[in-house]
């Protein structure tokens, strides 16, 4: 089963073609969000360099979020179009799952953090049972301070990955003894990791529906925003 996987939910634009036991090719750019400009060219190049055409692809995997609203819409619209045009199924996988999966076999808690602006992150907590990724929290949109409180309670070694790491690194080092960070070469949302997670599910016949599938936008409700604003104003007094 040949899968085309796309992740455009963060700063990184990434696409990969893979089958059960092999990653055939992957292109990633982790520089200035410009997904709407480069994504289709990347897919085209990937297919050409592998001497494939889009009709050779048996299914698609796409990052469903949470993450950049614009990025998610670009990726999902692209994959819905490809899926409809080729009549092949697609499946959405969380970008947080894929980021955590980059850190396979890590002991303790794996915590992907995606920048959600205004001091917030998109996150979830994971553990590895051998190579198997297990999610141990909901998908969350919380402030970095709230996340730190949550993690301190766990009293376990924590490994961070994601585009918010460079923003909060000092804070994390200070707050969590023994904290670890993904090495630079692994610290990006990669379509290969996303595709690998999606492939096994697609192979079992699972897929999403083109008409009902929507991105997972985690958003704060109005009351939460007003509360944040109030706290921000108090801080400035």
């Amino acid at each position, binding site marked *: 089963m040949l899968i085309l996987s796309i992740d455009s939910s963060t700063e990184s634009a990434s696409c990969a073609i893979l089958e059960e036991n092999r990653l055939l090719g992957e292109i990633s750019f982790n520089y200035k969000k410009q997904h709407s400009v480069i994504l289709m060219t990347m897919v085209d190049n990937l297919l050409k360099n592998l001497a494939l055409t889009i009709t050779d692809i048996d299914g698609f995997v796409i990052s469903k979020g949470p993450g950049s*609203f614009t990025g998610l819409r670009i990726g999902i619209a692209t994959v819905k179009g490809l899926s409809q045009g080729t009549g092949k199924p697609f499946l959405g996988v969380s970008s947080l799952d894929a980021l955590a999966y980059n850190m396979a076999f890590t002991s303790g808690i794996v915590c992907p953090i995606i920048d959600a602006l*205004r001091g917030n992150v998109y996150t979830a907590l994971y553990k590895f049972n051998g190579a198997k990724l297990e999610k141990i929290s909901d998908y969350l949109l919380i402030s970095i301070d709230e996340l730190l409180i949550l993690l301190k309670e766990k009293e376990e070694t924590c490994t961070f990955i994601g585009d918010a790491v460079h923003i909060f690194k000092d804070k994390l080092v200070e707050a969590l003894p023994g904290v670890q960070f993904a090495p630079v070469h692994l610290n990006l949302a990669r379509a290969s990791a996303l595709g690998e997670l999606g492939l096994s599910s697609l192979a079992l016949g699972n897929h999403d529906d083109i008409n009902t599938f929507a991105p997972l936008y985690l958003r704060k409700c109005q009351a939460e925003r007003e509360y944040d604003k109030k706290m921000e104003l108090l801080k400035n007094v």
Partner: protein
Amino acid sequence: MKITTESVEETKLIGQKLGALVNSGDIICLTGDLGTGKTHFVKGFAKGLKIEDSITSPTFTIVNEYQGRLKLNHFDVYRVSDPDEIEAIGFDEYIFSSAVSIIEWSNYIEELIPEESLRINIVKVPEKGDNYREIEISYTGERYNYAKEINLC
């Protein structure tokens, strides 16, 4: 600070001067009643940013994007009935990007506007003439200190 203008051209000129001074990531809030010249102000602002496209009000599209010496996001949130609605288009990604954002009717989405921003309020003074305007400029954050340089000369 307050600047008075006596014609559409003068209002545009103030916009242009501001447009020439703004930096990457700046957030400009623009308020004033209907017909005070907010969109004219933005036209001047775009000229100051060396944008050559003609500026139209994004009342229905909510945001228009332009490329000049910096990227410009021009918002008009007049038709937005609920801040949630504009947050859902990824508002934060626009205003916290490297582009300059100018937001007409920003008072409708006050809770989404960061404290550190530059605010322009245009006021009509009918007794002083149809085209007489007072342009009030205020800001929070040192990054906007350049606003002091703006004048009609």
